[in-house]
């Protein structure tokens, strides 16, 4: 097996609760946004990280790139430890790892032209200037499917899909080999979403990119991911190769999530599991298995309420954190 390009072990990020009453009162509970998350991604592969809002999936993406500082854990990219790097070495490593954000409206500077946005990383990392930079910018735009004349445009002159293409071009400008894609198509219309997903697949092949694809939409992830990890309340509850996870999920949360996705086929005969209640607050996760209050598994028992299940291998390559993973829903 090829060594992983990205290796994450025991990643933890807790956000401290602020003190009430002008900072004098008792502190609020700590929010356990990311709680002991581990995974690895082989070069040229895509790991889909899925979960509902507030499960910690975006925090994982940002902590890996140290856009927020992780509290514990080890992250290596191509063998280099990201967590302990000093500022200068980290900046150099940023050439290797980039991020594309969800909101193509909020993540582009409204006062900069597309050209300026693409020239900036080239200058910061001393990759190219002058005529060489011009040539690279034109090539980048072409590579993401935009006419080079877009270089003179400001973000407000672009559609959502065009902006997301600019966001991708900006990330690619420093020639990274690892991209964190944080809900890159969620804000786009479905016909444009398909274009951008195809573009991401093409770029991955051409440039041999490794992706961490963060999304809430399981159908989108199925389309692009080789491996999938499902998060719930800061923890990975199931991780498996995509065909296995979609074909025979072992965690009741994965099964419920899959059954809740509307399928565009009125004839589809599906048993829909409708989960009761809301996701609990990550500041007050339930004891035992964090999913137990909503869990539809018929066998759930006292153990689920007291004993947190470990993430363990339940089938070759498939990990699940459930006491009843051997008897899936």
């Amino acid at each position, binding site marked *: 097996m090829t060594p992983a390009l990205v290796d994450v072990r025991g990643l933890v990020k807790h956000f401290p609760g602020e003190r009430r009453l002008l900072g004098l009162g008792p502190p609020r509970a700590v929010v356990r946004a990311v709680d002991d998350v581990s995974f690895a991604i082989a070069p040229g592969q895509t790991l889909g990280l899925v979960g509902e*809002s507030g499960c910690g999936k975006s925090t994982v993406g940002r902590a890996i790139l140290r856009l927020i500082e992780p509290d514990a854990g080890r992250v290596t990219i191509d063998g280099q430890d990201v967590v302990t790097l000093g500022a200068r070495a980290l900046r150099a490593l940023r050439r290797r790892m980039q991020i594309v954000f969800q909101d193509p409206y909020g993540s582009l500077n409204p006062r900069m032209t597309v050209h300026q946005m693409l020239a900036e990383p080239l200058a910061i990392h001393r990759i190219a200037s002058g005529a060489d930079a011009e040539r690279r910018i034109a090539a980048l735009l072409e590579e993401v499917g935009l006419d080079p004349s877009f270089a003179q445009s400001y973000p407000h002159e672009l559609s959502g899909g065009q902006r997301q293409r600019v966001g991708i071009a900006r990330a690619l400008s420093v020639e990274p080999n690892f991209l964190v894609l944080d809900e890159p198509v969620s804000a786009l219309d479905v016909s444009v979403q398909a274009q951008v997903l195809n573009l991401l697949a093409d770029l991955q092949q051409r440039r041999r990119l490794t992706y961490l694809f963060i999304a809430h939409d399981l159908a989108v992830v199925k389309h692009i991911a080789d491996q999938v990890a499902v998060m719930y309340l800061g923890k990975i509850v199931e991780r498996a190769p995509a065909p296995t996870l979609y074909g025979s999920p072992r965690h009741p949360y994965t099964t419920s999530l899959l059954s809740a996705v509307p*399928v565009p*086929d009125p004839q*589809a005969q599906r048993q829909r599991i409708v989960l009761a209640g809301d996701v609990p607050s990550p500041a007050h996760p339930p004891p035992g298995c964090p999913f137990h209050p909503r869990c539809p598994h018929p066998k759930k028992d006292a153990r689920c309420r007291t004993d947190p299940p470990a993430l363990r291998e339940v089938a070759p390559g498939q990990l699940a954190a459930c006491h009843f993973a051997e008897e899936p829903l």
Partner: protein
Amino acid sequence: MTEPLLRVRDLKTYFVTEQGSGTARAVDGVSFEVQPGETLGIVGESGCGKTVTSLSILRLIPEPPGHIRPGSFIEFEGRNLLTLEPRDLRAIRGNQIAMIFQEPMTSLNPVFTVGDQIAEAAIVHQRLSHRAARTRAIEMLRLVGIPDPEERVDHYPHQMSGGMRQRVMIAMALVCHPKLLIADEPTTALDVTIQAQILELLDRLQAELGMAVILITHDLGVVAGSADRVVVMYAGQVVEQAPTAALFARPLHPYTEGLLASVPRLDAPPAREHGRLHGIPGQVPAATAWPEGCRFHPRCPYAWDRCRAEAPPLLDAGGGAEPGTHTVRCWLLTDPRRRTPHP
């Protein structure tokens, strides 16, 4: 055939743009009917005019810059809503026709309790006393599945989760037992497990209360699971209209076809085995400059000369469909052999 509950005919809602340079023809000649008790799905992407259509039905279009053009016709139980006096319109709006919006955060008033907000319509329209209205609000909260309604009735919106707020919105809309509920992207802002709860709730309430629903959404999966009939909109027009099963089995407009091919599907084989999504090239044109001829022709893989020159009317689908039940705005219906994409 029963008399339709709502009949929209040749609705045109235009907006004068900020620069004063042009007119955005956001909704441009839309016609459809809603039968009592049925669910009509309206699908389309941003900018297709689906939300403006629903706001026009309730006459909630801000004038200026918007206006509903003369010749448009919206009939609810035999009365033209567009010519009603404001007083008569108010008696219908929020009472017989209710609406829920996409953003439960911004559509609820943060300074009133949810109970007060639910009770308001009952006090205004049904002249309930405050005490009776409060009791009704608690009943409504129970109906929409909120636990501890006696306690929750005094809570403020910020004390509730997104899914709970959407339930409150539904309770508000249904407090007067409307005959028609317009739901504009009611689940778009919600997580998928919460979306499933809300869709199930709407289904149940519709069956219990016998109301008709217009379900506006961009999600073909939501439509497939909930609607009896579907209207597909593109560039301010209805481009295809059919019973749900027929639309998904035999999508005839190239836009409907493209939309269905664009959706990543959970029932498709996993990545690496099935190749690429199809997508639709280009993007939705601006409402100030719809293309000449068929408005979809610049993105259509089948377009030929006629499509560029002449705007197609809605044509019957044929193929065994009863006339008028499945209609398509596309010249391909006059020349089906052309349904082979250009190389």
